[in-house]
């Protein structure tokens, strides 16, 4: 039986671990600051001014401007990217909501919960699993491929989604 939840190839033993990246919690844009000079890094995104700069594994984001959620260990949504507004709903309305009120997984919500909670509590490898949107009025995007990774600070899970092409109604 094929593994439906998989660890990202870059993070497997023997492979070079992906560099970490800093990205904006709102626009998803990368940090332009010089690496290795944390004292010069800014907390607030210089591009959009509406997000804070977080760090995650380089393979955690499908690309700049991705649709993602930042989720705490209590599975409460603490930030939504601007692209995520179009997929999940407006950040202002979703902040504080439970993750399972927004997405569900065909593999079982327990697995989804477990991966997200683990990522939010400690630094874990990026994993990918299918998810679907829960609300009835959600856009008809079918099954999404979600990358779940640790990010921070403060510690949280990054749930970044992209279309998988399956199950579009």
């Amino acid at each position, binding site marked *: 039986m094929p593994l439906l939840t998989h660890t990202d190839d870059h993070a497997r033993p023997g492979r070079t671990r992906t560099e970490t990246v800093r990205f904006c919690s709102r626009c998803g844009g990368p940090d332009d600051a010089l690496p290795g000079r944390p004292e010069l890094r800014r907390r*607030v995104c210089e591009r959009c001014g509406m997000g804070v700069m977080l760090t995650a594994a380089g393979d955690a984001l499908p690309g700049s401007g991705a649709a993602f959620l*930042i989720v705490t260990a209590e599975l409460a949504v603490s930030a939504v990217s601007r692209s995520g507004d179009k997929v999940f709903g407006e950040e202002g309305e979703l902040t504080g909501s439970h993750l399972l009120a927004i997405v569900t997984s065909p593999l079982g919500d327990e697995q989804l919960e477990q991966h997200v909670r683990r990522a939010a509590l400690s630094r874990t490898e990026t994993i990918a699993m299918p998810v679907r949107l829960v609300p009835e009025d959600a856009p008809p995007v079918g099954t999404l491929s979600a990358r779940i990774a640790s990010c921070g600070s403060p510690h949280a899970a990054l749930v970044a989604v992209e279309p998988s092409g399956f199950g579009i109604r």
Partner: protein
Amino acid sequence: MSGIRTNAAAELLGVSPNTLRSWERRFGYPKPRRTQGGHRQYDLTELESLRRALLETHNISSAIELARQRGEGPSSPARLLDAFDHFDEGVADRILEESLAVRSVERSVEEVLLPALELAYEREGRDAERELGSRWATGWLHAARRVVAPATRPQGVLLFDSSPRLDLESLHVQALELALRRAGFRTLLLAFDLPPERIVRAIRAIDPTAFVFCGGEATLEVVGRLVYTVRQVGSAGPVFEYRESMPVTGEHGIPSLGTVPSEAVERLKAYVDSGRLEQVVVAPEVEPAARPGRVPAAANS
């Protein structure tokens, strides 16, 4: 209120002046005052609060909401509790310093220190934060006690504390001791469970005008033994209780000094200035909730 201009405020937060102005338009925070020349003047407290909130949240609106909550009033119990939660004794010191700039020591203790500790003790699963708060508060109260001027009143007050160390009640008792000393009373605080023969010299030395039972963990037997010892030494000073510390519920005939230090000081002053116990409110207005191990007064008569 100290204020700084837009560029300095933006630099402090690590954002551009345009970002700062866009937050003001969108969220109404930080909200600058305007100088006579129309320039924005940002409050340093608001900026510092926001700077810290930005480190603790994942988006700007949550950070602003958090900073707003913390920024309510100068040196609030919530801010002190927050300092405990971050194990930041430096910030805790600063909050009390700020409070002392606008409040007396008594009000700082009653309106900031003790309420913050009560909040800390109400929560579950925050034992380390609570202990830090308790130890820090003990140190702060001791430091405040050391700088109190010598007693100005001839009357002495002997406090008996039955609370466990680092307990919330123990901090209430220390706060009472500080208030009594600051009111000019010669004050001595002793543990409730000292053997009677060990307190005789203390009673003779201080010649207390009044005895106060505090802490709420005493047993009837110990209370009885202490009162017997006090009377044997020849002291006729009245016995009071503080914060419902007597091990019986209901009417027990022991006058109460109330539940906060300033109230206790006022009642003691009323007593010693008039020499009449009637000046002190005797019966509590509300029946206190029974504590474990307490005996109803009727069963005790």
